[in-house]
């Protein structure tokens, strides 16, 4: 018997991941918050630790429209233009 495959064949990876920074010193960090309760607090804590212990130059918290959607275009555009590293906070 011959069966057909119900899954979608994986396409070739069209893009590579961005190279990882060797160190965080001097980097600009974007923190993307998913709007869930306390997610802003934990990301602010992470940002402060990255500054104090890893020497990052700055951080900024971005807020998604809500937790059920990906980060919107304005966030992506600003992060691409002005940041080196992203931390996406996914929390429940």
């Amino acid at each position, binding site marked *: *018997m*011959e*069966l*057909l*495959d*119900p*899954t*979608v*064949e994986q396409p070739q990876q069209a893009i590579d991941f961005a190279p990882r920074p060797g160190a965080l010193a001097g980097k600009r960090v974007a923190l993307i918050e998913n709007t869930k*309760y306390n997610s802003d607090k934990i990301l602010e804590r992470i940002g402060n630790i990255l500054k104090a212990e890893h020497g990052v130059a700055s951080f900024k918290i971005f807020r998604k*429209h*809500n*937790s*059920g*959607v*990906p980060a919107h275009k304005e966030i992506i555009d600003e992060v691409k233009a002005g940041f080196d590293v992203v931390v996406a906070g996914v929390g*429940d």
Partner: protein
Amino acid sequence: MPTLSSKRHKVEDLDATEFCFQQGWTDGLPVIPPTEERVLTMLKAANLNPDDQIGYIDNRAVAVSAEKVALNAVMAGCRPEYMRVVVAAVQGICDPAWSYHGPGTSTGGAGVLLIVNGPIARQLDINAGDNLFGPGWRANATIGRAVRLVMRNVAGSRPGLLDRGTLGHPGKLSYVIAENEAESPWTPLHVERGFTKEQSTVTVLAAQGPHQFYNQLSNTAAGILTTCADDMRTSGGIGRQAEHVVIIAGEHMKTIAADGWTKADIRKFLFEHTQVSHEHLKQTNRIAGAVQPGDDKKMRALVAAPEDFLVVAAGGMAGAFSGYIPAWGSKTTSRAVTKEVK
């Protein structure tokens, strides 16, 4: 004859159903092995070409082809004439308003509730009566199963991987009902949502499980709906103001209609009687923050507007039971979507 592009597997020394299990293609129940002949028959019944695009799920970057929908409908056990309903439902979950990313993935564990309206429901014998959410009807059991298999096999919503439901619920196997338009005194759901009575539609909602309430004491509309409102007042995360489907079954339907109430009257009553104080919501950890002076008088509605109650006449004609189903999330994260069955 149209050409199918899916990868082919020769299965010679193994039972075909077992092979499907081994490939990870099933929902835990045996499937009908998807052969070329069966898939072509399914496509033909809906007048579709294999490469017709049924939908596109933006954040997964997945195009859902008619061929893949037909393949999964075969595996689910659908009769070919069900295919048009499956297609409309898949269009619904690919709609940006349904917003696949959340309900297809979330720890909140949404099922896809399908509410079928119009002539197709009677033609296909989609159950609108006794044992509404239970087993016994091929159309109800297999159409929803086909949608879930598409989510699993095409959109990647596999439990523990991209489907992270903490609890999930049995409706994630199949969750299909029709409205009992033949006996309902009210305007059907799809007509309220802009279609004609003669059109057939599927409404998809990212939904929690069904909640049943009983009222065997009251013989008035207000009496029955008072019980309903009390039962649902803090359901489904009032903090989110999720849409709610309200299922009115036979005995309650007759009592409510005898008082002259329309679906709009039901919505208005429920909107007014499901308000909860901020004091209670804070004390029960449903919204954040400490109780402030005046919170006992400050009220929050269960839904954002009366229209967010989707009232459906369905369920057995015997028994003083009705029910409600909270949506998975708020309207900003996923909304009910109605698509015509073509």
